């Protein structure tokens, strides 16, 4: 128990320290972009949040498959936690993207393929959470949302590929030919990706623990009523 708590505190401390490092690299170390100026620094956090959203929804699919195979409540709890955390990160992506868009394109929103598919992604996983909230029986809820979690993931590769498949004004920074950025920007991007990935882990475990505690509490309540 103590070892688990220690590991947990270590993970939280590491996430905090990495986040400070990512802030340093993004705001101080990375050079100012010539065309966009300071606002380009939004990119490092925008990308970190987008990566987290994609990773979270991929893991929702993995956990959903795990649930359908094993029918274990643990998989369902993690699918729910990851979907909720993924929606939070997608919300941040949409808002930071909109602020960046105002500075770079002079508009808060445009129906560009990347923006539109990301908004659809946000609605898909809002729908996932709404579906979960609407079903009382946990087994029905787990089964239906597992199917939804697998099918819903189809949109993630579409979001990723949208800037490569269709004509878009969204920048394509990483492509098969390499990274279209100053080499000094790369550490800022990597530090940000690493820090946000750890933050995703911390948020997911915290959210899953809440569901586990709620389950334990409900079992105790049921036992107390029976007595």
């Amino acid at each position: 128990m103590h070892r688990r708590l220690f590991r947990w505190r270590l993970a939280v401390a590491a996430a905090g320290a990495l986040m400070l490092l990512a802030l340093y690299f993004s705001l101080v170390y990375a050079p100012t972009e010539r065309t966009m100026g300071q606002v380009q620094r939004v990119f490092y956090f925008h990308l970190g949040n987008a990566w987290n959203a994609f990773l979270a929804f991929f893991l929702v699919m993995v956990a959903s498959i795990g649930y359908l195979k094993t029918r274990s409540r643990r998989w369902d709890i993690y699918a729910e936690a990851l979907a909720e955390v993924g929606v939070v990160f997608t919300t941040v992506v949409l808002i930071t993207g909109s602020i960046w868009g105002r500075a770079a394109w002079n508009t808060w929103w445009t129906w560009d393929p990347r923006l539109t598919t990301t908004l659809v992604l946000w609605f898909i996983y809002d729908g996932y959470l709404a579906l979960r909230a609407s079903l009382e029986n946990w087994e029905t809820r787990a089964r239906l949302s597992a199917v939804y979690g697998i099918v819903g993931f189809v949109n993630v590769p579409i979001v990723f590929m949208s800037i490569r498949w269709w004509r878009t004004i969204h920048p394509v920074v990483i492509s098969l030919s390499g990274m279209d950025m100053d080499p000094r920007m790369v550490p800022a991007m990597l530090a940000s990706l690493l820090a946000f990935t750890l933050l995703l882990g911390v948020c997911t475990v915290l959210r899953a623990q809440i569901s586990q505690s709620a389950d334990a509490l409900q079992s105790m309540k049921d036992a107390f009523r029976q007595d």
Partner: protein
Amino acid sequence: MGYLFAAMAVAWGTLFLYLAYLGQRQAQLSRELTLLQQATRDSAKKEE
């Protein structure tokens, strides 16, 4: 610079609010658990 500050404030504000919300939910569950444990102990004493 203003846009950078706005984006950072929104990003960190949203994440901190979410973490605070999770912390609040966990604290509420702990409170309920303590109350239930107390009720269980009281009911056991009465039976004795």
